[in-house]
């Protein structure tokens, strides 16, 4: 009985935390004023927001049913793929010059995503 009570309060807390982080991350996505800065806010949605909601789902299944740990799979998948997609979006920002171009890497002329091949230099869209 006491375990069920604590579990129910924990579910409510996890739901509120998850919803609040999802909302805060999306407000950040809307309010930040630079493409690279905007990458920062939605990471909160992907980690704590979804993580707390899935934790609430797991707790709910343990308190009210026979219990399961399947949700850990989704959590692990999201945590592994979030940095990869963030890296790709940052590369898109550099490529489209939507941000200040970072200083060129040592021992090289330019970033590879900005490097136009020799034969394409005279095309109008690359000048």
């Amino acid at each position, binding site marked *: 009985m006491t375990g069920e009570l604590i579990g129910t309060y924990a579910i409510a807390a996890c739901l*509120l935390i998850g*919803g609040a982080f999802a909302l805060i*991350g999306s407000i950040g996505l809307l309010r930040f004023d630079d493409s690279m800065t905007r990458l920062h806010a939605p990471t909160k949605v992907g980690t704590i927001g*979804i993580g707390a909601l899935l934790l609430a789902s797991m707790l709910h299944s343990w308190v009210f049913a026979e219990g399961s740990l399947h949700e850990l799979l*989704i959590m692990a998948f999201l945590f592994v793929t979030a940095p990869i997609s963030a890296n790709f979006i940052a590369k*898109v920002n550099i490529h489209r010059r*939507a941000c200040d171009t970072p200083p060129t890497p040592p021992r090289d002329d330019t970033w590879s995503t900005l490097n136009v091949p020799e034969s394409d230099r005279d095309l109008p869209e690359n000048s």
Partner: protein
Amino acid sequence: MSDAITLMDWAFLAAFVMVALAQVLCMIRLVIGPSVGDRILALDTMVVNALGLIVLLGIAQGTRIYFEVTLIIAMLGFVSTVALARFVLRGDIIE
């Protein structure tokens, strides 16, 4: 115990409202987003918020069917984000 159940029901309602509002805010960024990167980022965040909504639906209805749905949408979201970014970067998805 009934107090705790009432609190949990209110927390459900609040979480549904907050995640749905987050979805709408991402939609605004998707429409106004000045560059392609912002639009891809907004779509990625919308997929994650949709996952949250599906998880909430699964808890509220007490079924285990939504687990597979969530997993498949998570994979599709990642693959589509990478495909979009790759198309912008290289002009092609699979070279």
